[in-house]
Every structure is written in C-alpha cells, then in structure tokens.
C-alpha cells in the first residue's frame, strides 16, 4: 500500500469513485481510494438505482441534470468496457393532494426554466404510461421521460476503472481506523493495513460518514437510517417508468433485467447502522404497491435487503471542508440520492478541493447553512 498520497478518498461507493475520477481528470495526482469491503458494498450497491431530475430546489435540479447528462454518455466518457444499463423510461411522480399539486406545478415551472422537460399530466395520460395504474386517490402526475434507472454496480465499476486508468489507486478490503490531525491540519489516514501520510482526506463514506468525521474530530449533523428494498422475480417488460408517490412514500420500477425493484420509507427504522432486513417491510411494501398497481400482486418477491440513507438535517447533500480541520473534506448527507448525484458530486468536490471556479451550486451546500439557517429544504423526497 502507498505510504503517502496527495489525496485519500475514504469510501469506494459511487461517490468516492466519481470524486476520484474527476480529481484526476482535473489534474490531481497521487489519489488513493480506501474501501473497507469491496466497491459499492455499501449504500451504492443497495440502492434503488433511480435517476431523476424532477426536484423542487434549483440546486438539486442543476446537480441532477448535470449527472443525468453525464450518465447518458457515461460509457464513452469513462471508456467503459461494459454497459451501465441506463434506461430512460421516465419518472412518473404521482400527486394525491392539492398541496402536492401546487408544489408540483412550481417544481415543473422551475425544472422547465432549467431545461428539464418535465410536464404535468392528467390521470388519463398517466394511464397511457401505466395502463393498470389505480388512479382512485390521485389528482394528477408529473412525468419526465429522461429520468430512469441505472445499474449502480456497473456504474461504480466504470468510474473505478477510469480512475485507475488515470493513475488512481484503489485499496479494497482496507478499513480506515483513524484520521490523524496535527495543528488543525490533516496529516494522515490509519488503516488496518498501514498508515498513509496525506494532507487531504475526502470523506465519502456514505452511511458511515459521520463516524469517519469523528475520527478527525469533526462533528457532522448527519445520521444514518435503515431503508428496505425488495426485488421480484423477473418478468416480461410491464412497467417503463419509475413510479413514485410522495404521499405513499414509495417508489417502484422494473429493471431492464425484468425484476421489479421497490422501496418505501418506514417510520422508526433503526439509526444504529444496522442493515438487516426489517420484518414489517414486506407487507407494508406489498400493500401499498399492489394498491397502486393491482396486477403487481401476481409478482413474486424474491429477496429483501436494506441499506443506509445518510440523512442531513434538510435532506440535501453536504459538500464541505471541515471548518476546524483543514484538508478534511466531506461529501455526504445525500439522504437517499447519492447514487443519482454522483457525477455532480465528483465535479463539485473537485472544484472545491482544487480551488476551481464553481460550475455547480455546491458553494451553497456547505455546513455553514446549518449555522445561518439557510436550509435547503427539498420538498420532493421519499
């Protein structure tokens, strides 16, 4: 293992690999990614894999639009010898309350102003997209064709291989045990395989980001919450878009492989980093999804798993350098959307770390917003 590095990235999920790629692409040298297990073993490999641009905050729209456009060209951009399985079947956001409808109208106006071609559609139009949709408790829907689904494992591999091609080093099965700080500056990273001297650490540890920060003496206002997902046996193509309902707290889509992947937010899930499956999830999920799309009752659940949402106080990401430890950077708090934002995360952190002119709105996404109260309250999250 390297004894020194210019930059050490902690976390081999999609965020860490993307940050590594963008750093090297923009001239950084001697960058090491440390992963305690294998690439995308954490939240990346457990996520729902949806990609959307329909947000209620301008900065989220801009970050996601940047990311989505990157994904459209990811295979050639990253020279990946494989398929990231980007399927732009659209996102169908279901609206079931007047207040939600009003918010959605605002969102769409914002999105359209930023070049995102989302539109409000009637329930009849929604049924053209999903003919068996139960519209009983719905008012309308929002739809954007360019949203969709992407394979998290392959995407992370694509970033990782491009990173390595540019000279980056990835150490898997290497757990960080300490972050050393001297006079308010980062001096190194301790691992179970040895120590690396470095002046710059990027904390991209997903659900474990607050723990890594603690090692450096940095307090982050983050907590990690368990979220469950289930997948069904594969069937013929039945559902093109990701179907999402904020009031039902669920999302569901069919992967190109044929399986249906669905998740929901359940209250009172543990925040102790447990990723075991939740016994109450199958019936809660099945009930809500078959109520919305009755034919899905014939699908067979094949497996259930859980991963961590790394939650920030306002459910928007944090991109920052720690105020009290120079050289300690964090990209975390994605609150369930780290995968779809990964290219923007890479670009933003690179601009932040290398001192480049911001092309993305990351300067508003620092820690100071929790001091000033200028929170980034995103209205449209599950």
């Amino acid at each position, binding site marked *: 293992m390297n004894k020194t590095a210019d930059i050490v990235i902690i976390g081999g999920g999609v965020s860490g690999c993307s940050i590594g790629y963008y750093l090297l692409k923009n001239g950084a040298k001697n960058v090491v990614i440390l992963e305690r297990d294998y690439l995308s073993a954490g939240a990346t490999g457990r996520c729902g894999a949806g990609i959307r641009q329909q947000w209620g905050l301008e900065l989220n729209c801009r970050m996601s639009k940047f990311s989505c456009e990157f994904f459209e060209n990811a295979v050639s951009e990253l020279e990946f010898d494989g398929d990231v399985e980007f399927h732009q079947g659209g996102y169908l956001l279901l609206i079931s309350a007047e207040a939600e409808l009003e918010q959605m109208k605002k969102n769409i106006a914002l999105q359209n102003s930023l070049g995102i071609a989302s539109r409000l559609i009637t329930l009849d139009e929604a049924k053209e997209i999903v003919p068996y949709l139960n519209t009983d408790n719905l008012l309308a829907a929002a739809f954007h064709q360019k949203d969709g689904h992407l394979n998290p494992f392959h995407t992370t591999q694509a970033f990782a291989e491009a990173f390595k091609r540019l000279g980056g080093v990835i150490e898997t099965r290497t757990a960080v045990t300490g972050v050393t700080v001297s006079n308010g500056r980062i001096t190194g990273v301790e691992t179970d395989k040895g120590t690396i001297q470095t002046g710059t650490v990027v904390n991209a540890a997903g659900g474990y980001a607050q723990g890594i920060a603690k090692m450096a003496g940095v307090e982050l206002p983050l907590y990690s919450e368990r979220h469950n997902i289930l997948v069904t046996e594969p069937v013929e193509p039945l559902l093109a878009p990701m179907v999402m309902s904020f009031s039902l707290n669920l999302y569901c889509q069919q992967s190109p492989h044929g399986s249906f992947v669905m998740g929901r937010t359940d209250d009172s899930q543990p925040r102790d980093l*447990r990723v*075991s*499956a*939740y*016994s109450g999830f*199958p*019936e809660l999920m099945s009930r809500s999804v078959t109520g919305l799309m009755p034919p899905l009752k014939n699908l067979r659940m094949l497996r*259930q798993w859980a991963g961590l949402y790394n939650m920030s106080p306002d459910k928007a990401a944090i991109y920052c350098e720690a105020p009290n430890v120079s050289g300690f950077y964090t990209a975390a708090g994605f609150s369930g959307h780290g995968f779809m934002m990964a290219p923007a995360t890479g670009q933003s952190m690179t601009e932040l770390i290398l001192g480049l002119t911001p092309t993305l709105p990351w300067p508003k996404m620092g820690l100071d917003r929790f001091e000033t109260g200028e929170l980034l309250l995103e209205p449209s999250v599950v």
Partner: protein
Amino acid sequence: MIKTDLLVIGAGPAGLCAAVAAGESGKDVLILERSHTPGGQLVKQTHMFFGSEKQHAATRGFDIASILLDKLNAMSNVRMVTNATVLAAYDDGLWTADILGKYEKIMPQAVVCATGANEKSLAFPGCDLPGVYGAGAVQTLMNQYGVLPAERAVMLGAGNIGLIVSYQLLQAGVKVLAVAEGSARIGGYLVHAAKLRRMGVPIMTAHTVKAAYGKESLEAVTLWALDDKWQGIPGTEITYRADTLCVAVGLSPLSELLWQAGCKMLYVPALGGHVPYRDDNLRTSLPHIFVAGDAAGVEEASSAMVEGTLAGLSAAEYLNAAPADIKERKNDCLSQLAQLRSGHVGERISAGLELARIKEAAGIC
C-alpha cells in the same frame, strides 16, 4: 401473528422426532412442512433402515414416517401444517412463512430448525440438459409420485444415495448402465454396492462424468477415468447412450434460515457445507434456536431422528418444561449418536462435529 412455544421447521425424520419429544412436554408445538406430505425423505425411502431398534432398523423409511406421524397425531398440543414454507428469520425474533398460500408471521419462544439438506450439483458440460437430475429428485419422482423418469440411466456417485437410488431404478425396471464414483473407493455401504454388482451394474471408482450430450434432452453421457489429482485422463472415455444421468455427489445442509437468524456458522466439508455451531444440547449460538438432522450436518436419517429427539428435549428444557427423566433421555440420545457415529463414515463426521461444537455447554436455562 401466530404465537407458539416451539416452532419446528421441517417435518422430516429430525423435525418429527423433535416435535414428538417436545410435544410430550405439553408445550404448544407448531411444525411447518414445505412439502404437501410430512415425512421428508422418509416417505420415499423404500429400503430398510440400518441402525438399531431404537432408530427403527430393518423398517422401511415410509413405514417409519407413519409410526412417527401416529405419535404426533395423538398429541393435541402439536399442530402440523404441510404446504407451509418458512420464508425468513428476522433479527426481531419474527419468522415469516407461506402457509397454504397465506403469508404469516410467527413469534415462537423457541425454534428447532430441521430443514434438511439440498442435493449438491456439479458443473460439467451439458449439466443443464433435461435428463440430468439430482438422484434424490429421481427417487422422489419414482417412489413418491410414481413417475418413471428413465429408461437408461447412468449414476454419478457411489455414496449411499447413489447406490440406493441405482438399486431402486433397477427395481423400477430401468437399465442402470454404470455407477461412476470420483474417489478411488466406494463411499456408501458395501452391502448396497454388492446388491448392485450382483445385478450386473458396473461400479467405476476413480471415474467421473466428462460431458453430457443431447439436442433437446440427454442422449449420451461420457465418463472418464481420474488420476490421483482428480484430473480426467484423455483416452479413457466411455460413452453410454442414456436418457438419464443422476447426480449423487452429496448433500449440503439447508442453512439459510440459520444464517438469517444470525446463528454463528462455519464451513465443515465432512458435514456437507456450512453448519451452525451448536452445543451438546444441539443449541446454536442463539439461545432459543436448536438444530437437528441434516441442517446440522449431513448424516443418515437414523442419526437425524436421534438428533431430533435430543433437540426437542432441549427445547422443552429451554421452555421450562423438561420431563423428569430428561437427563437419562438426553444421555440415551447421546449414546445412540455415539454408536451411530462410531462406524464406517462416523470417524469423519465426528471430527467434523467436533469443529462445530460449542464446548462451554452450560445448562439450558
């Protein structure tokens, strides 16, 4: 939600014996069996059992199942449901099941996991052709469903399953062309081997399948000899025209539920695969979960029955309902097991069990 004192998963020889032993304590026992018939492998075992009278020796497997079921049916506190698959174990102590097509949750005070074993598969060219079966599958088709799956069969594996199923294929009128065994010695009981040989069936030790061939389904099987490093020797190929190849290369414990529940597991080749650590009471690393039969390590049905009884007694003791003579009865089980394991393959199994044994077996409660 179903509440029960004891959940027994699997109504094979181990599960039935566990339920009988625990049922005698008066506690509520629920046995869930995924098949439509109870008895597990017993119901298709048309051969007489080895062992001693205590394990129903010289009685045919399906008759043993009836004997155990009669005992269970006489107990009002024991309920058995077939067509009931336990689906999952969660870390909050809940278990879920598909019971007669209904999804149910179960909150048991104690569990005996007697899920049995799964046939191992082998990867060889053509192994996915229709006509390539697990030997146990063929036995089920013939002996349980009355379906003759073959006209001309080759058996891979000369352990007891391979030998017994070959004999049963002969009884069903199938031409058994050869029994191939990868190792240099016959693994099953030699009396079973002798039964086949005097029917004219060749047993080819140090041989395995090279490839299976066929367009729509199996048409031919090529065997070849193995050298002492288990590599095929070119030039030794023999090809048989066959419509069936039975793979009998061992069993692996069905331990998914134990993994899910969080039992400490380890891999022991002599026991067939991943098995739970357990103490002498057959209690796993989780205090309320007990294990018996092939799920605890692949052995014969005779020892599965004794283990079932022992696990059932231990579970009753854990539930504070131990019979007065529990010590004697447990010791009897332990001495039966010691006897059953002192024979031909017993040494290897005993060594394997020692690896998986939790030594500091304290009292149950």
